[in-house]
C-alpha cells in the first residue's frame, strides 16, 4: 500500500493505513503477553481463570507481589541474581575483552585456541552439570555466590570472546600502531586506544552475557539450594501439587523484567552510537 500512495501524500508524511494496521498487529502480538502478565499479577486469585476473562481487575491488589517477594523469598532471589549476574557479566566482559584482543592481535594459540573457546558451547549444559555439581560439593562451592559466578562466567565467556574477537579483528591495527610509535607501551595502546574504540562491542557483549546469566535456570537449580538461589529458581515454588500460584508467578516475572529493561535502555545509547571508526579513510 505504501508503494501506491500518491507522492503528495507521502510528502506530508502521512502513514499509510496498511502500515498502521501491520504495526498495530505487531504491537499487540508483542505487548499482549506482557499486559496479561501484569493484569494477572494484580488480580485477586479468584479472577485468574474466569470466563469471560477479567480484562482489568475492579479491585487491583498487591498481595501477590508481597507473597512472591517475601513469603516465597523472591526478594532474596532478586538480590542473589543481581549480585551473581552483574559479577559474572563484569568478569566475562573483562576476561573476554582481554582474551579476544590477544587472539585477534597476537593470534594466540594459532587457529585452534579460538575455536576451542567456541567449542565449549557445543556441549549441552546437562552433559557437564553433574560433574560440576560433584566438584562443587567437594570444594565447597555448592550453593555459594562465588560458585555460581564462576559457572556463569565460564558459561558466558565463549560468546563474549567471540563477539569481541570479531570486533577487534574488524578494527584497523594502524591506530594502535600509531599509538605505539607515538609513545605508548603495548598495554597503553590497548587501554587508551583499542578499548575505547571497542566500547560499543564490549557493551553489546556485556548485555548478552547479563541476559544469559539473568535468565539462566538449569545451573542455578542444580548448583544452589537455600543460600545462593537465583530469581528464576524461585518460580519453581509456584507450581505445587495444590495448584499454580499464577498471581505470584506473574508478579515475580514483572519484577524480574525491571533490571533487564533498565539495562537495555542504558546500553542502547552505547549500542546505537555504534562504530566510530571515522578516522579511517574518507
Amino acid at each position, binding site marked *: 500500500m505504501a508503494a501506491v500512495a500518491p507522492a503528495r501524500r507521502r510528502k506530508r508524511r502521512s502513514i499509510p493505513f496498511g502500515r498502521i494496521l501491520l504495526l498495530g498487529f505487531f504491537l499487540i502480538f508483542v505487548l499482549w503477553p506482557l499486559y496479561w502478565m501484569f493484569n494477572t499479577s494484580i488480580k485477586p486469585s479468584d479472577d485468574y481463570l474466569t470466563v469471560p476473562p477479567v480484562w482489568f481487575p475492579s479491585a487491583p491488589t498487591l498481595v501477590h507481589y508481597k507473597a512472591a517477594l517475601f513469603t516465597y523469598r523472591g526478594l532474596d532471589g532478586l538480590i542473589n541474581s543481581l549480585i551473581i549476574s552483574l559479577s559474572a557479566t563484569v568478569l566475562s566482559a573483562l576476561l573476554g575483552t582481554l582474551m579476544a584482543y590477544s587472539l585477534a592481535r597476537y593470534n594466540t594459540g594459532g587457529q585452534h585456541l579460538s575455536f576451542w573457546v567456541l567449542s565449549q558451547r557445543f556441549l549441552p549444559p546437562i552433559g557437564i552439570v553433574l560433574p560440576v555439581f560433584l566438584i562443587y560439593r567437594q570444594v565447597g562451592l555448592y550453593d555459594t555466590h562465588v560458585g555460581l559466578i564462576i559457572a556463569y562466567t565460564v558459561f558466558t565467556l565463549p560468546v563474549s570472546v567471540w563477539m569481541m574477537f570479531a570486533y577487534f579483528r574488524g578494527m*584497523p591495527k594502524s591506530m594502535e600502531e600509531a599509538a*605505539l610509535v607515538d*609513545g*605508548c607501551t603495548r598495554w597503553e595502546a590497548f587501554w587508551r586506544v583499542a578499548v575505547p*574504540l571497542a566500547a560499543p562491542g564490549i557493551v553489546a557483549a556485556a548485555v548478552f552475557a547479563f541476559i544469559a546469566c539473568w535468565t539462566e535456570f538449569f545451573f542455578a537449580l542444580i548448583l544452589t539450594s537455600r543460600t545462593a538461589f537465583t530469581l528464576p529458581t524461585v518460580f519453581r515454588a509456584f507450581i505445587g501439587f495444590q495448584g499454580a500460584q499464577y498471581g505470584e508467578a506473574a508478579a515475580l516475572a514483572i519484577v524480574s523484567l525491571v533490571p533487564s529493561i533498565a539495562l537495555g535502555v542504558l546500553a542502547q545509547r552505547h549500542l546505537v552510537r555504534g562504530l*566510530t571508526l571515522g578516522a579511517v579513510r574518507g
Partner: protein
Amino acid sequence: MAEVKITGLHKRYGTFHAVRGIDLDIRDGEFTVLVGPSGCGKSTLLRTIAGLEEISEGTIEIGGEVVNDFRPRDRDVAMVFQDYALYPHMTVAKNIGFGLKARKMPKAEVETRVGEAARMLGITPLLGRFPRQLSGGQRQRVAIGRAIVRNPRIFLFDEPLSNLDAQLRDEMRGEIKRLHQDIATTMIYVTHDQIEAMTLADRIVLMRDGVIEQQGTPLDLFERPASTFVAGFLGSPRMNFLAGTLALSGSVAAIRLSDLLLPVAPGRNLDGATDGQAVLLGLRPEHMTRARGEKPAEGMFRQEATIDLLQPTGSRSYATFRLSGAPVMAELQAHDVSRPGESLPIDINMSRASIFDALSERAL
C-alpha cells in the same frame, strides 16, 4: 635529527621472504623515498625502522645506535599512516597532543606545542573537532601534525597520499616537500607512485622483490637506470624498449634493429659488450622530437615516421608510430602533428638513449 644505517636486513613471514638483504645508508636530514611496485617490501622495510615489525636478520641503527631491540616508542620516530590512523574518540587537539601526553609532558607545554603545530599546518580552527568531521585532506594534515609536534629524529611516511584525490594529492605533496625544507629532519617516505618519488626525493631507493634494484638521486635513476625495470618504472609515459643487436666495429658502435642501424653516440662506454650481443634499446618519449633544419644535430638520428595514434594532452601530444616494426611513443609539441596518418621526420636523441643487455636486462 639522525642518520639511519641498515645492514643486511632480512624479514621473513613464515616461508615468505619479504625483505631479502637490504643495506642502506640514509644521511641526516635526507628525504629518502622507498618506491617500487606493491609487494616489493618497501612498507615492510619502513615498518621495521619504526619497530612495528621485528626483523629476522641484520641491524638497524638510528643516530649511531643499534635499535633492533628497541620498542617503537623508544626509537624517537614519528609515522604517518596510509589510513591516517587518527584516534576517532579524541578531538584533533587530543590526537595531536596524544604522543606528548603519553610521554608525560606537562599539560601547558602540550597545549603550546599543539597550537604551534596546528598553526604551521593551518588547522587551528579544527582543533575541537573529531576526525569523523574532517575531510580527507584535513585528516592528513592532522596526521602530519601528530608527527611534527613530537619533533622526532626521523619521520616515516607510509603512502600518505594514496587515499586522496588527484588534486589534493598534488597539493599535499607540495606541502610535505615544504615541510622538509622548513624542518630539515630525516624523512623516509614509501610510495608506489613514481611522480611522488621523483618530485619529493633527495634520494630514491627503488625496490623490487625485497631487494634494492637501484638507489640514487631522482635524476640519476631517471637518466642512468641500472636495469629495464628501473627504466620502465620511472617516467610517464614509459620508456620504449626496442629489441636489437649490437654492431661493433673498431671504435664505432651501432644498434641494429630489424631494418635500421642506429649509431650509438660516440664516447659511450660499452666495456664488456660484444659484437652481435642481443640488446634492448631504451628510448624515452621525450627524447624524440620533430626534426627541424636540414641535417640532424650531433648525436641525433633522423627517421621518417607515420603517426598511428595521437593522444594530445594540451601541452604535449603523445604520438605512436612504428620504428623498425615496433610501436614507439614520442612526446611531441602540441602543434607538431595534427592528426593520425600524418608523416613527419623524427629526431631520436641517441646520446640520451639507454642500452640494456637483452638477457640480464641490466644496463650496459
